[in-house]
């Protein structure tokens, strides 16, 4: 483990100032939000030591609000706030669930939604919910603002559609209609505070008249270089009733979308097995919910 005491940390007092510094020192500073992963990565030499742009004090990027028909979450909003937000719980309970699973209370209090997104771990717990919510990311620079759908933001393992002078400032998505129900799942090696071995989010839009599935969205994490949508699985669900045979066939179909690897947390074969089983279990829970 190495010390970071020789790094400089620049702390802007407004978003405008932060964007100025990013433009002038593009590529020479890393953005520090909560720091719960970046600091560990730098100390363990997993990422190069670079001077930091500390945006942790920019309270203008901390909010959860409903505006123009969208739920908008400021990039610096921490996971404790997201987990306890009545708006998130009502409009996207699947994201609230994931926020609780991110880590211990200490991690939830400090880690930010924007940090989780830009840190770009394929095992990041907020990402599968954001994929099934079709979330949009707002990226700002000194001279531009643009919005990128989350599934276009990731180009490969830790490869992002973000310029060095851009800052992720906001995450937005439409509130889920009443006929949708969703669940987040996570398999970690410790209950309280673990990196996911596999994780995912399943969202079902019900056709209440026929009790069949009108829309299905399944996103899986830690089983490919980026989070992936399990499109084959989704196709099997749409139009079907959620009976046991459908649930197993759909769960098995996730194999078509994933390419897990062996690492310290589990083997590829284990991940494949756990992914199928968790998708089945999650569908089973959702099938009970609708009948209850």
């Amino acid at each position, binding site marked *: 483990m190495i010390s970071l005491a020789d790094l400089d940390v620049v702390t802007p007092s407004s978003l405008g100032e932060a964007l100025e510094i990013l433009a002038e020192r593009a590529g020479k500073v890393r953005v*520090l939000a909560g720091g719960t992963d970046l600091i560990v990565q730098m100390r363990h030499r997993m990422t190069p030591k670079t001077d930091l742009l500390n945006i942790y004090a920019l309270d203008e990027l901390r909010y959860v609000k409903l505006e123009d028909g969208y739920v908008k979450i400021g990039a610096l909003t921490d996971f404790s706030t997201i987990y306890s937000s009545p708006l998130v719980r009502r409009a996207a309970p699947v994201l609230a669930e994931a926020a609780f699973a991110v880590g211990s209370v200490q991690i939830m209090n400090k880690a930010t939604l924007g940090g989780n997104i830009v840190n770009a771990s394929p095992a990041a717990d907020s990402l599968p919910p954001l994929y099934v919510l079709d979330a949009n990311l707002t990226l700002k620079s000194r001279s531009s603002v643009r919005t990128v759908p989350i599934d276009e933001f990731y180009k490969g393992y830790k490869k992002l559609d973000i310029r060095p002078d851009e800052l992720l400032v906001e995450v937005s998505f439409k509130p889920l209609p009443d006929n949708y129900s969703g669940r987040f799942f996570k398999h970690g090696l410790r209950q309280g505070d673990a990196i996911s071995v596999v994780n995912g989010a399943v969202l079902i839009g019900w056709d209440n008249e026929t009790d069949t599935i009108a829309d299905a969205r399944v996103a899986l994490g830690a089983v490919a270089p980026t989070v992936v949508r399990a499109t084959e699985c989704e196709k099997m669900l749409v139009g079907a009733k959620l009976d046991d045979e459908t649930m197993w066939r759909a769960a098995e179909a996730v194999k078509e979308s994933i390419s897990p690897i062996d690492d310290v947390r589990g083997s590829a074969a284990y991940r494949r097995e756990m992914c199928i089983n968790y998708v089945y279990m999650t569908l089973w829970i959702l099938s009970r919910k609708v009948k209850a």
Partner: protein
Amino acid sequence: MATSRVVREFSFKLNGREVKVRAPPAYTLLDTLRYIIRLTGTKDGCSSGDCGACTVLLDGKAVHSCLTLMAQVQGREVVTVEGVDPIIPQAYAQEGAVQCGYCTPGLVMATAALLKANPKPSDEDIREALRGNLCRCTGYVKIIRAVKMAAGV
């Protein structure tokens, strides 16, 4: 301390008192507490945010001081085990919720954050609040009892 290119002065509230400390901006709050201010109650377990031994309150919320840089502390309020309501460590002692004691300061601070937000926690609330604090000696039973004693439930 490693050779530093930059040293800055940081002011923040520590255990109720305004303090000014000169430190490198990427020095951790944990190292600043232990090696500059010499408040050694806060322990360094894993330096990676896994064990919870270094837990302090930052603006009233439990965070890892090992993952908090001095630049993030500027202008905020920090409470360490030295400044916590003595009822909590006393309850840990009375319930015998301490064996080697290394995890105790972190557990006490996680307890302080819990009781501040939720003065009458259920067993499940307690388990959730302490899930980030590892104790490798005991079985957590006495720890949960200590939290309940401190809460008077």
